[in-house]
């Protein structure tokens, strides 16, 4: 039965996340924006609490690991499960602060990657690790099939060589999931992901970036020089299946893109909520029944932003709902990421404009959200990459046809 309301079973979780976002994340937002690279100690306590909630089952499976797809389930019964819980709670947390959400111990994108593709043994072995994700290299970004980092099997170990940049939580995490090629001549099918624990010989965190936004989240450059990991740290199958191609590695993205979309949705909501308040103080009320064109320009702008926001929100829930119900959601995940990414920037920037110097000033957070939101239209696949994916699906094109 068609119903697009927030699931009833997740409302308690959302309100809990909202309280945490308000009382912990917002309270520290400006502090860690101003003190880039300082470790947000406040998050350790929070992470412990989240682990506790997770163990007790109260978190409905939400979190970075919530994207793991279960095999079983009642056939024919519609489910609102861990994927839905994850996007909803991440949205609330990012209403609090995107950078701090990205700094939550044990909630890294690497954790989602492990949850998506690890076998049961690995799933258990890497449980409790805080895992970052290392894909991008100095010479390759969106064309991730072109990565130069290599992994060569030597006895029971893979030897990894290469340089990774833009590793979120790369300094603070316990391990990184590294994309490397087993054989450059075999193209994308030879790209595999490896869990490399921190402290492994040959792995060096070289430096941290200074960024436009999400400054509380550390972004590292990591170098691998003859870095050896057990061969069981390869996630998924070691076979190079040229037919399946990139699909295995890319499956992670079907799960993580809705999460990043929900970050943009949460951040944009923060801007909308505050802007609505500030506009009301300035005497502008939003009327949902009167045509936008007979209201003030500010009210009309607000209505348009809220409509776009609602679209991004619902596309994200759709993608998560499909994952929870074992439906292929590659197209819908990219649609959600594309819409949420661009709408996130549009809304946060326009809110600054509407609120004038109040929006632009560091005395409040609108300017910060307008900086934070930009990354969400870039990482986990840029706007343009999402459009490519959607276009190829809709038009029935291969990556060779539509480059």
């Amino acid at each position: 039965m068609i119903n697009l309301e927030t699931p009833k079973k997740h409302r308690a979780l959302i309100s809990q996340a909202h309280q945490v976002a308000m009382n912990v994340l917002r309270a520290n937002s400006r502090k860690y924006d101003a003190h880039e690279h300082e470790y947000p100690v406040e998050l350790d306590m929070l992470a412990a609490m989240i682990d506790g909630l997770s163990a007790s089952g109260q978190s409905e499976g939400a979190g970075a690991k919530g994207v793991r797809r279960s095999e079983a389930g009642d056939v024919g019964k519609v489910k609102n499960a861990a994927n839905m819980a994850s996007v909803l709670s991440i949205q609330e947390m990012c209403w609090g602060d995107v950078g701090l959400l990205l700094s939550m111990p044990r909630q890294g994108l690497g954790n989602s990657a492990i949850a998506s593709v690890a076998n049961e043994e690995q799933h258990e072995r890497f449980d409790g690790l805080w895992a970052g994700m290392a894909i991008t290299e100095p010479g390759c970004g969106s064309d991730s099939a072109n990565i130069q980092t290599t992994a060569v099997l030597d006895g029971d170990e893979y030897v990894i060589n290469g340089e990774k940049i833009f590793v979120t939580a790369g300094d603070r995490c316990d391990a990184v999931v590294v994309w490397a090629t087993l054989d450059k001549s075999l193209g994308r099918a030879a790209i595999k992901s490896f869990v490399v624990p921190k402290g492994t010989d040959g792995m060096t965190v070289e430096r941290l970036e200074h960024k436009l936004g999400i400054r509380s989240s550390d972004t590292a450059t990591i170098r691998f020089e003859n870095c050896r990991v057990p061969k069981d740290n390869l996630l998924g199958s070691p076979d190079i299946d040229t037919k399946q191609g990139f699909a295995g590695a890319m499956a992670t993205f079907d799960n993580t893109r809705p999460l990043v979309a929900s970050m943009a949705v949460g951040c944009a909501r923060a801007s909308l909520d505050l802007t609505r308040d500030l506009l009301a103080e300035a005497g502008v009320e939003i009327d949902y029944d009167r045509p936008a064109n007979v209201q003030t320009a500010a009210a009309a702008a607000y209505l348009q932003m809220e409509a776009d926001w609602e679209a991004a929100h619902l596309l994200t829930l759709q993608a998560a709902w499909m994952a929870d119900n074992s439906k292929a959601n590659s197209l819908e995940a990219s649609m959600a990421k594309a819409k949420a990414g661009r709408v996130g920037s549009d809304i946060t920037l326009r809110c600054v404009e509407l609120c004038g110097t109040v929006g632009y000033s560091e005395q409040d957070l609108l300017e910060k959200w307008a900086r934070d939101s930009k990354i969400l239209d870039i990482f986990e696949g840029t706007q343009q990459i999402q459009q490519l994916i959607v276009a190829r699906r809709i038009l029935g094109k291969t990556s060779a046809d539509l480059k």
Partner: protein
Amino acid sequence: MSSTPSNTQRRRGLAATEKADPIGLAIAALNRLSQSSLLDRFGLRKTAEDVVYNATKSGFRGVGAVSRQFARAGKRGSGKRVPSAKRTGVFDLTPSEDEQMLVDVVTEYAEEVLRPAAADANEACEAPQDVLKASLEIGLPILGVSEELEGIATERSTVAGVLVAEALAQGDMGLAVATLAPGAVSTALSLWGSDEQQATYLPAFTGDDVPAAALALAEPRPLFDPLSLETKAVRRGDGFVLDGVKSGVPRGHDAELFLVGAELDGEPQLFLVESSTDGVTIENDPSMGVRAAGISRLVLEGVEVASIAPLGDAATYRDAVRLARLGWCALAVGTSQAVLDYVVPYVNERQAFGEPISNRQSVAFMVANIAIELQSMRLLTYKAAARAAQGKSFDREVALARKLCTEKGMQIGLDGVQLLGGHGYVKEHPVERWYRDLRAIGVMEGGVLV
């Protein structure tokens, strides 16, 4: 019959500041002359086309259709109501089995009946009789009417209404509006009618000979706001007298019953007006698109109606405005889906520079964005519909759906033409019609109701 247009002055697209000087007038005369010789040269003034000419001619007036006798029945007091849909608390995008079956039937009708009839109906500015007859067989006018009143709704049917409007508009928006127009009035009667109103008017809709009917909310002026009406109702004795001009009225010439928005005691209010009442005049108002719906103006001059006429109150009037807007959102989704389904094979087959044009990002990304925004429009529309069906507030959700459908729907119409290039601009392809139709979203008020 006269051809004097109602209240508004013809501007020919000119703002009031434009004053014609002698040279301007000479050019205008020359223009008229060349037009007429052009018409004569190609023999376009054939008598056979007089019918079409009159039907499509702006300002062609006539009295309202002779309405049947709606025999008074029932008593004062509340009518029968359908219950709200149940609240499952589960996020779900799957239609119920009933809804899916209905959508399958309507989709077939849209593909096999509406789409082939669309181009001619657009020219004629009316829906063919057999098309309308078939729509009755599907039960469109009674979809929103309670089972207890001989309709087919066992619970509030907003979601089904939205799914049906979407499926119809995938065939053709103009014909969709023509077939949905009577249902707007019967659904309103089911939702808000008194026992007397339901007993008097609904049997005609649930019987075999369903009357044309129309929900008339819009008025012809810039920045029209349905909450501030210039059509006025004043009390006289037990009844009311209505004066004003309504626009965007589907099937005005054959409608036997109108549901008209008018201001009473400073509040907007719906009134039932039978078409044969003295003072009711219908005027053709062919517009940019949705032409098959026979868009008209309804001129009310000292129209006296009895105490049975007012339907609902100011609060239900607001709901009517919202549910009409939601219907237009669903129509936008359907027509936008038609655009997407049409451009995909076209851009894949059309060759330029030695390969399909869809191999280029500038083309492919336009298609991707059509798909993304179309799904956005659909989800917002469904959300609002589900809330309305469940008896929750839906003012915000309708406003957001309408805003998105207005902007993105038009963009999709625009891109549909652009993707076909010059071929999109000519009537060999339907995209130019969809472009005109999609401009109706955000403009139209009333006409449909889900």
